[in-house]
């Protein structure tokens, strides 16, 4: 077990951290899949409204590689398919029926797993439609089926506000997790890293020798890209694969039992939630079911429903569904109101900040944060906060300028591809420059060129 000190990043003290307890929710009427939010995949619809589907029957495939399919999270019939601007597929909604037929596969026992050929295992995962859960750095695209990764990383932590606690979703499922690691070992031919934070004491106790890296550090210490950056020895290490903890359980469950796992643990948090906690619910559950009766009724303004954490997540309308990779729903005030009178010279005892310019630095309690930009757009004043906070030591404002000047070679040398898209640079920027978004788009452009 290796210990890592991750010196950079930032810990958020925000209101609405989910309690470590789970409410199990019943079966919803409908579940959904959000193809728009699956990064890089170019979805092609395989179903039409009204078609009957089973749990696990493919709903969409990736035009770039039609072997990569995305299974239905529920059984019933396709109720509606909602498109956005330029016919982007926003939602595929399944209306569940009573019996919910499911696609099943042959179970693979642990012994069989030992014997199975790597290529057969890859084929099994592709056929099951869960291959897309494996992602490849640095772009975070679906892992290529025809390559062997330098390593596969599993990170068990919840630094970002507010992701589910790994100790909750792993409780009583250590065997399944171990089986999942055996699968990954087969895929990566032994190079599997499991990282967790030193603060996850109970988890470390229960997993013991399964954990390979223990780190101390602030958000985004739990990002696989940070682990790769801090452990890599040669350029080839940059292309490590990774999988989220709950996704690994889902994959392991399918291979071990031949059945799809349709439930997962969601973290429901944020200042607009009356009792922030964890929820056991269906994959692709409607947001309304998760929020039902748990909203803070004292708050009258607009609120934003963020899937995937307040920094890296995306906003969805409350009528939507949980995305395929998402494990967290955070509700924060929209913040579309004018600031307090002469707010810029107030001491700001309750204003969350990375800088030292507010008295909130002396305030230990969790603070309320909304989606207001907290300032107007300005040119970069070279305050260096973005470079100070960057977990992978990118000189963000230099890189940003290189990207804008189309000096891609320069930007690459600055570590554009090391960027873990944690969003901290955009968060700390006093000029409110969309640093992360700019780098992200530049990375996406590069990714297109490399295919």
């Amino acid at each position, binding site marked *: 077990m290796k210990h890592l000190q991750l010196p950079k990043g930032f810990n958020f003290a925000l209101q609405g951290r989910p309690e470590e307890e789970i409410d199990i929710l019943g079966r919803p009427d409908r579940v959904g899949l959000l193809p728009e939010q699956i990064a890089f995949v170019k979805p092609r619809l395989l179903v039409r409204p009204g078609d009957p589907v089973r749990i696990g029957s493919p709903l969409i495939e990736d035009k770039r590689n039609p072997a990569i399919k995305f299974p239905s999270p529920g059984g019933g019939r396709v109720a509606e398919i909602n498109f956005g601007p330029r016919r982007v597929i926003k939602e595929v909604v399944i209306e569940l029926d009573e019996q919910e037929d499911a696609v099943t596969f042959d179970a693979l026992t642990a012994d069989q797993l030992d014997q199975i050929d790597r290529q057969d295992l890859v084929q099994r995962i592709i056929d099951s439609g869960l291959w897309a859960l494996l992602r490849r750095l640095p772009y975070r695209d679906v892992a290529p089926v025809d390559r062997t990764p330098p390593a596969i990383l599993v990170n068990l932590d919840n630094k970002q506000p507010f992701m589910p606690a790994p100790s909750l979703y792993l409780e009583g499922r250590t065997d399944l997790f171990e089986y999942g690691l055996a699968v990954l070992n087969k895929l990566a031919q032994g190079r599997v890293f499991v990282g967790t934070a030193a603060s996850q004491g109970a988890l470390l106790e229960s997993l013991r020798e399964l954990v390979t890296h223990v780190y101390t550090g602030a958000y985004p210490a739990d990002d696989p890209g940070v682990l790769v950056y801090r452990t890599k020895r040669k350029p080839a290490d940059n292309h490590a694969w990774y999988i989220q903890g709950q996704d690994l359980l889902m994959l392991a469950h399918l291979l071990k039992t031949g059945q799809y796992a349709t439930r997962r643990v969601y973290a429901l948090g944020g200042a607009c939630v009356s009792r922030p906690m964890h929820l056991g619910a269906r994959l692709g559950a409607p947001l309304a079911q998760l929020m039902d009766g748990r909203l803070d009724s004292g708050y009258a303004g607009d609120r934003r429903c963020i899937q995937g954490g307040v920094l890296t997540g995306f906003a969805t309308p409350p009528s939507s569904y949980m995305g395929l990779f998402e494990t967290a729903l955070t509700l924060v005030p929209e913040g579309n109101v004018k600031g307090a009178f002469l707010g810029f010279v107030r001491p700001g005892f309750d204003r969350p900040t990375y800088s030292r310019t507010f008295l909130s630095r002396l305030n230990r309690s969790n603070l309320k944060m909304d989606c207001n930009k*907290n300032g107007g757009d300005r040119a970069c004043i070279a305050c260096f906060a973005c470079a100070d906070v960057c977990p992978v030591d990118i000189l963000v404002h230099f890189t940003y300028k290189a990207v804008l000047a189309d000096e891609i070679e320069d930007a690459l040398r600055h570590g554009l591809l090391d960027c873990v898209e944690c969003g901290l640079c955009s968060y700390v920027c006093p000029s409110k420059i969309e640093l992360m978004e700019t780098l992200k788009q530049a990375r996406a452009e590069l990714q297109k060129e490399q295919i």
Partner: protein
Amino acid sequence: MKVVKRFFDSNRQHFVEGGRFASLYALFEAIETIFFAPDTVTRTSPNVRDSLDVKRFMTLVIVALLPHYAFGVYNVGYQSHLASGVSTSLLPVILTGLSAVVPMVIVTYVVGLAWEVLFAAVRKHEISEGLFVSCALFPLTLPPTIPLWQVALGISFGVVIGKEIFGGTGRNFLNPALTARAFLYFAYPAQSSGDAIWTLLRDGRSAPVDTFTGATPLSLAASTGSDQTVAGQLAEAGFSNGDLFLGLYPGSIGGTSTLLALAGAAFLVILGIANYRIIVGGMLGVVLTGGMINLLAGPQAAAFLHLNPLHHLTIGGVMFGLAYMATDPVSATHMPGAKWVFGFMIGMLTVVIRVFNPAFPEGVGLAIIFMNVFAPLLDHLEVQLRLRRRIPNI
């Protein structure tokens, strides 16, 4: 507060697209956001943003400068009353100081803001708060006797040539306030050099009373012969070490007080706005260069060469320059290591200019501008060194 809100809400229509004053929207927006932060929300991830914005960042610099204004008003009045041989009781001194300083500040802000609004209106962006800092710094560097038209001309040059033609705050490579100051120095040497300019004379006097020397400590030091010591000359002129540290001597309006500059530097460093590397590096540069010159100077050398290096920090505006001008994040070096070099070189050049160049009694402004030009080179060197350590990811 409600009244203010209603005022902005009812007048916004005139400034938005199609209104009578649509071209002045930037001004309206700047004034409104002083009272109420805008209600814009994030459109991309991350969904939340830090509470710090450029407005607060820059305002805190102005807050740090306020004591300099208070002291400057007092010192201008005090020196003026001393030179004119009238009572130095507090109230009249302050009134004299105010009558000299307030018009300069008003002219600076009106002219500077006019340029900024013009450029903001043409370029259709918001007014950047960097202007308010430049306009707060500029009068503090001026002698109290300067004509107001020169103040207007100076800030115009600083804002337009020092900043706007490069694209505005954030894209300038020279400190705008210092650019303005240097412009006046070289364009109007008559009103910018000599001992007489540093003291305002009252009651129509054309010369100070006999007991008032009028020389600044720096010009005293520069003119000290090799058979005397600078410290002795300063004491003879009535400048105790305490006075020098406090800044109670003729000089620019706000730049004389080493004590306040140190306090302001500490304030800005604690808040994370000014970078300590530049300030400490600059002080080290002054002291080490001064000490080096002490060691190298022969017995026949001018007395200035033998000046105790710590004295260099208390006479003239070097601490003021290091605390507020050199730490301007835009025109300084950006990299942490380069900041040490940048600060050190400023300190070194300041002492070199002071001691070896009789034409320029004070060197800190020129040293900072000179190093502003070198800042990108220093940054480039450190960036290249740092990039070499990265494991390539291409």
